[in-house]
């Protein structure tokens, strides 16, 4: 690959991958809102608390 293609590809792909990973990580670690929230899977957990 020529240098300009390589630089463009790596810089774009690394940036996009990093942003994707970072935003998804934030979704995973964000604290859930107190009930009633929008999601049903954690309803039981909140009631036990």
């Amino acid at each position: 690959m020529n240098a300009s293609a390589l630089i463009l590809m790596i810089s774009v792909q690394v940036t996009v991958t990093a942003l994707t990973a970072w935003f998804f990580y934030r979704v995973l670690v964000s604290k859930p809102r107190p009930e009633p929230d929008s999601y049903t899977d954690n309803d039981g957990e909140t009631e036990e608390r």
Partner: protein
Amino acid sequence: MSTNTEAWGSRVGLVLAMAGNAVGFGNFLRFPVQAVQNGGGAFIIPYLVSFLILGLPLLMIEWSTGRFGGQFGHHSTPFIMGSMDRRRIWKYVGVFGIFSNIAIASYYCYIESWTISYIYHSLLGTFNGLSQHEVAGFFSNYLDVTTSTTGIPYEALLFFLICLALNTWILSRGLSGGVEKVAKIGVPMLIVFGIFLAYRGITLKAGTQGAVHDGTVGLNFLWTPDYSSLANPKVWLAAAGQIFFTLSVGMGSIQCYASYLKKRDDIALNAMSAGWMNEFVEIVLGSAVIIPISIGYLGIDRVVELTGIGGLGLGFRTMPFLFEQWGPILSALAGVSFFGLLFFAGITSSLAMGTPGMGFLMDEFNWPRPRAAMAFGAVILILGLPTIFFFNQGVFDEYDYWAGTVSLVVFALLETILFSWVFGLKKGWREITEGADVKIPLAYRFIIKFITPVVLILVFTGSLIRPANDDWSLISRGKWEFHNESIIGQLRHQGIGPNKTWFAESFYAEAPGTVDSVFILRGKSVVSVTGVNGKGQSLTKEYRFSPEKHTLAVSLGEKLEAGQVLYSGNVINNVFFIDMARLLLISLFFFIAALVYIAWRKRTKEGRDIS
């Protein structure tokens, strides 16, 4: 009271469902082709700029309007938009948000059914030993619904029915029990399949397994920037268009998914996460599959020529032949991965297309979920059948153009005006930032209010009056000719050729060339005419007609001019099917608008809040 008590199971499930909604066939088939046709690596610059000033603002607008409307118990765009401004017109603008989904799902489910069929044939080893021409012919035969590749009559129809039944069943299971479960399996699976194929594409070595180039040759071709293309408005329009297709904005499905969120819950981070996940699949995986593999085997010139027939052609006519070169086991695995990836990309999108119409029926007419899902399936069946039986007559392309392209831009423009200027950005910004787990840069206030609407107006105007050969310098010369694919060109049937009437007694050759073969195929007479297209490339056109009803008017080796009689007899031209497809789409729009009117009257009669 509405029977609609749907809810999302988990936040991750919602983000994956939204990402699955966005990730579709376009990520793997359309994006690389657009990049090749618009300056290679330099396309990424207007593409990313469009993502930042068009894609992300539209995501924020749609997520927040959806959640806002959901507070009033609305789960489809007519009443979501109606809750933002009391003027009745917005309810009818919102009709686009149901119309586009239904019309797109009608042909999208058909493509989805091809992927099921191709997974089946990959496992069966149908493509093993076939030449490239035979693999391409397999696809053409498959599209001719009366032929069968498995011995099952009407095979294409059967796979469509299986696909539609699967979609209907999943939709009848609800958001958390159906859509979300599929997204939790489908999105990770398509990423795994994508990584496998991207690895194979990048590590392809010239001289091994029949490859003539390294996989990096394709990457080099795709990513080498041609900065001169940045001055071409065509490239910017193509980039903005790709952002529409890839993010599923301007459709109404994002609003529907977001309408099941409560006011306090975050939308900003969710929107960012789903949007960037789509970009990862498109830019990182989508660019590393079909172009590196196809260039590795066919060379740059041949692939550039093949991209002229679009990504669908490249994916279904060419890729099975290339996988064949990897031996029987690896080719089956690659076939299952590639078409499995497309299947998961497709089904997570088609399920999203089902939810707005269902939400509307459940909210306004108290239909139980299974009945609403059945209604969706029935409507898709009715609208989908013409795309199957009259695919070669152009019905599929008409649906794609009007519902899958023009409607999205029109709806996105109108919803942006509503959000920024009618509802007001002060309230709008509050909606976007309410409960946000991430800080949105303040610059987006300015972008959403001014930049995004202006860009949308430019995109719409560009599509409306796109010049012939994409030569925008015609403005200065005062000789404006419309491109065949411009909205005006389409309305005028510009690209239709000499067969302009619905019915005729003769069929005229559409392009000049020489008659190089005349033969009978599956009961149809076929005349093959080879000429040269505008770019100097050899172009073969095949005309099919009934030997019982029509009489051939040319002979083998004869040189033809465009407009010369090819055969005579009673002819129904493609323009008839194209106009009928348009009539069907307009009827669908007005049918949904009538349902919205009935629902509004019902609400008024019952004293329910219209807002």
